[in-house]
């Protein structure tokens, strides 16, 4: 669509495929519009340890709270047994409890009304579908007042999510008890579980289909294209994050975080950003074979 617009406007472009113009590190057709792409990680080691890879999300949100850009953050915290739940966090030190990836559903948006009711300026971190939901709520605020108080949305890269019971079933099939889990990770096409005894258990991501949330198959958004800023680890070196900065708000915050030594950055060349494009593309094509796509619109109870 953008390429068609450019042709109409009569602009010359060097290339038609891949990274447009050859200058941009990521193709907006695949990852959505953005201003810059960075490789980042938290400077604070404590944050990196609590985080999944670079701790960027936690550091960035803590900075937003510290500097008063927002006075509340809606995020997911891990409870006992790895079951996440949403929480409104106002103390930047408490954000560390929200660090680290979660591997089952946390309905973060469910706290948005409460956050908007109680605070002046709110940030929300969530999966691409949750960010999309917030954007829709800003455009169609049927039941949600003051959505313009959502000052910042942070999206997390996501391929699919799991219902908690299915996560337990998956682990059981891997012969792992959830209480023995030290760390979970999705990396290089594998779901990796590190147990407390030091053992590593892996399953290829391709085999996770039967455990994942069916509705996720219908999603085409890997990098949270509607967020102010998107964070993930795919395409970044170990211990680092890919940061896709999309809006001016996000750009100012990220710049501030870097200037205040909250985040450190690396040359994007040191990453493998093609992986981000590849996974985005996979997600945009897999929808065609999803149950949802093949279901619609033939509902058995409705005569056509």
């Amino acid at each position, binding site marked *: 669509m953008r390429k068609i617009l450019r042709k109409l406007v009569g602009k010359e472009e060097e290339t038609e495929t891949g990274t447009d113009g050859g200058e941009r590190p990521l193709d907006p057709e695949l990852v959505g519009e953005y201003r810059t792409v960075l490789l980042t990680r938290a400077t604070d080691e404590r944050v990196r340890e609590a985080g999944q890879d670079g701790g960027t999300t936690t550091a960035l949100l803590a900075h937003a709270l510290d500097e008063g850009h927002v006075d509340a953050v809606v995020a997911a915290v891990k409870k006992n047994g790895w079951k996440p739940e949403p929480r409104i966090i106002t103390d930047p030190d408490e954000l560390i409890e929200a660090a680290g990836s979660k591997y089952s*559903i946390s309905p*973060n948006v469910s706290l948005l009304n409460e956050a908007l009711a109680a605070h002046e300026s709110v940030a929300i971190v969530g999966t691409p579908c949750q960010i999309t939901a917030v*954007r829709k709520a800003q455009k169609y*605020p049927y039941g949600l007042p003051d*959505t313009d108080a959502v000052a910042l949305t942070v999206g997390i890269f996501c391929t699919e999510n799991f219902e908690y019971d299915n996560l337990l079933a998956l682990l059981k099939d891997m012969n792992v008890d959830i209480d023995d889990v030290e760390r979970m990770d999705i990396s290089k096409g594998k779901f990796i579980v590190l147990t407390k005894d030091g053992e590593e258990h892996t399953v290829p991501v391709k085999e996770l289909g039967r455990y994942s949330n069916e*509705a996720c198959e219908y999603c085409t958004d890997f990098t949270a294209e509607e967020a102010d800023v998107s964070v993930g680890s795919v395409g970044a070196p170990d211990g680092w994050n890919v940061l896709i900065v999309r809006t001016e708000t996000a750009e100012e915050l990220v710049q501030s975080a870097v200037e205040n030594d909250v985040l450190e950055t690396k040359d994007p060349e040191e990453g493998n950003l093609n992986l981000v494009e590849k996974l985005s593309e996979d997600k945009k094509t897999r929808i065609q074979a999803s149950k949802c796509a093949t279901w619609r619109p033939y509902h058995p109870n*409705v005569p056509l």
Partner: protein
Amino acid sequence: MKIAVLSLMACGACARNLEEACHETGHEIVWSSLDGDTGKPDADVLFIDGAVDFTDHETLEKLQETASAVGTVVSLGSCAATGGFERHVIGMRDPDRYHFTVFPAAKFTDTDYAITGCPPTTDAIAAFLRALDERDEEALRPYKVLSGDYHALKPDLPAPVTGPELPVEDVLLTSNKDLCLGCDLDVIEKDLFCVGCGTCSTACPAMAIVMDEKPVIRQERCIRCGTCFASCPRSFKTTRG
């Protein structure tokens, strides 16, 4: 754009928010039944507030007379859009009558748009007014589809799958036509489309939805307004605003 308001069987919250939205957007309400105006309004847009009791002939006539005089008719709030809370009520005037006689305005007159909510927030109404001003057809589409006789909609076959949000028409085909998760959780085909984001819960005007990964309806509080359905990111598409 001159605005007219016709308040029928309503609590008044929708009309009140409309007045506030008009104050914000600078639209003038030139005719309002609440202020005693009668007859045919000289206005561009008519907002109908509340549901209609079909045994109330006087009101039915008033509705049809008023709506026929204005080019664009909008069902404001869930009571006007789908019957909502008013329809959920057993309207008893005579002790021996015990059935539903209350319907949304669309049953008795042509409507162009419908704004869900109990009540729709002032922000929602202001957003609608701006879309109407700008003739933003894409932004207006959900209001259009949810108005009138959506029961008669047919799917666009074979439309390509373009994205994760269903066009409204397709989701409507699954529902029991009351378009609320309280009536029919499968309106969003919980297993097929629900991602557990929690938007329905946070939007619900009655705090009738709690999240246990997926929504759980507290039937003792649900008022059948359909705000949950309309707010769900999977009920209809939206482009980035």
